[in-house]
């Protein structure tokens, strides 16, 4: 069994996916197994570059790549739940199909988890096309200067808003240049998307993404919800520098009008209360 199962949902972005797999194939940390949930109409596994990258990943990790072609699209939360059910490793890395990773990222995330034992640690990608869009008012960073601790963060609160801005445009990238940490530092988040290492046991304790049937087909916020629940019980954070970059392709979770029909945070009060009474009991 690998120590990390990399869970990768992909849909309609074959070329960004090649970058993502190339970054994954070259990680210095190799105790990983890749599980792909492919929702393209035609399976991508046979594209030459992707097939070659899968072979490199197998050769370097010693673990067979699991490639599931499942063209029926029920939404991203369902994809994530499907992948979680395939996982067996103590840690799972949810990796979006448009993220380019530096080779040290996974090693740094695993090391941080070993130290903190918290619910999740993210590596939020910079949008480098925003490099020249410097927004000093959105670069505030709250570092975890001790151990990462559980916290109840209310969506929409002033603190939530402040933390949220850091993950827009290239704000994190600019903040990183200013703080220039020599070794990765952990900071507080509202949530963190795209490349997130979860403690699988903790993630299952809050129910994973099993709430997916209660969401409309086109939704967002499924990771925001899960992370908010995890933060309450086990704490969560993100890493600076993140060592990741966005491929900057259009979103693939939107409906024909370019919108979503629902946000998973609508379920937060109910799920938080249920978990709260469970831990109180």
């Amino acid at each position, binding site marked *: 069994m690998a120590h990390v199962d990399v869970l990768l949902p992909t849909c309609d972005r074959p*070329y*960004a996916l*090649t*970058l993502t797999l*190339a970054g994954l194939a070259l990680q210095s940390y190799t105790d990983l197994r890749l599980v792909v949930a492919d929702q393209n109409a035609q399976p991508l596994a046979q594209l*030459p570059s992707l*097939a070659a*990258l899968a072979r490199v990943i197998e050769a370097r990790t010693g673990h067979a790549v699991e490639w599931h072609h499942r063209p029926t699209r029920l939404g991203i939360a369902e994809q994530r739940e499907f992948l979680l059910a395939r996982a067996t490793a103590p840690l799972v890395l949810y990796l979006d199909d448009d993220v*380019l990773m530096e080779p040290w990222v996974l090693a740094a995330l695993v090391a941080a988890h070993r130290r903190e034992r918290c619910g999740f640690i993210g590596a939020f990608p910079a949008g*480098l096309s925003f490099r020249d869009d410097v927004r000093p008012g959105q670069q505030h960073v709250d570092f975890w200067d001790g151990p990462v601790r559980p916290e109840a963060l209310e969506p929409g609160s002033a603190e939530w808003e402040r933390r949220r801005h850091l993950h827009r445009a290239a704000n994190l990238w600019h903040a990183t240049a200013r703080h220039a940490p020599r070794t990765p530092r952990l900071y507080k988040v509202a949530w963190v998307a795209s490349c997130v290492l979860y403690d699988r046991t903790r993630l299952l304790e809050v129910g994973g993404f099993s709430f997916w049937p209660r969401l409309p087909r086109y939704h967002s916020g499924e990771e925001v919800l899960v992370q908010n629940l995890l933060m309450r019980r086990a704490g969560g954070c993100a890493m600076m520098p993140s060592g990741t970059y966005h491929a900057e392709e259009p979103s693939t979770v939107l409906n024909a009008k370019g919108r979503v029909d629902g946000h998973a945070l609508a379920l937060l009060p109910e799920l938080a209360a249920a978990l709260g009474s469970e831990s109180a009991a």
Partner: protein
Amino acid sequence: MTNRVDVLVATYRRPAALAVLLTSLCAQTFRDFRLVVSDQSDESAFDADEVRAALRVLRTHGHPLEIHRHLPRRGLAEHRQFLLDRAQAPCVLFLDDDLILEPDVLALLVHAMERERCGFLGQAVIGLSYVDDVRPHEQAIEPWDGPIAPEAVAPGTRAWERHRLHNAANLYHVQQRLALPPGRYLAYRIAWIGGCVMYDTAKLRAAGGFGFWRELPPAHCGEDVLAQLRVMARYGGGGILPSGVYHQELPTTVADRRIDAPHVLGLDRGTLHGPC
């Protein structure tokens, strides 16, 4: 100020493969290189999102980048000569546009070039789809026991048969068996080596580079082989393992292989041989 290495990439009609190669360059532990990419596709490779994304990261790492649209197409030899003419660094690394490189490939090549002081060194390209196709009869390897010396290797000779080691995943099987400690390498004798070759820039130029393109029709193959044979005859060259270079195993973009440069032109500059 020049970099220690200029990485030279000629590309044609495969932007996704190129983006994977560029991602491999983002991951290199050796960072003192400049990148020159020249594209001969009908639609510019530099307009592809995935190529732009990878180039943005390379820029962020501080690598000087030079991109060219080099048209019309006059064949690969001319394309390589065009790239060589752009070079400023003491070493040039020619990379095919359909490779995946492990992060230590450049570091090992630079280290070996400094020790060996020969004309060129390469890491042969492994086709991992052949990982279960073990071919003991193609695993013969001739290590360089002393310093790498000039060698004349011609088509049809016994030494020419060395190329079989680079077929399929043979080299992968050999290096798995040898299991050298990290940072160590083995230099071995070759006929030629494809895909990922680092030259001493001055020595490649002194041997004529790819200037023989004028003697070939635009449709040809084997131009890298011929350049290597000529450098090898004057300065020596070799392969080093372990190789961390993998093929993406795309169909070739050199469709017409009837004119094979080393069979048409000889080892000596200006000598013309009949077709084989």
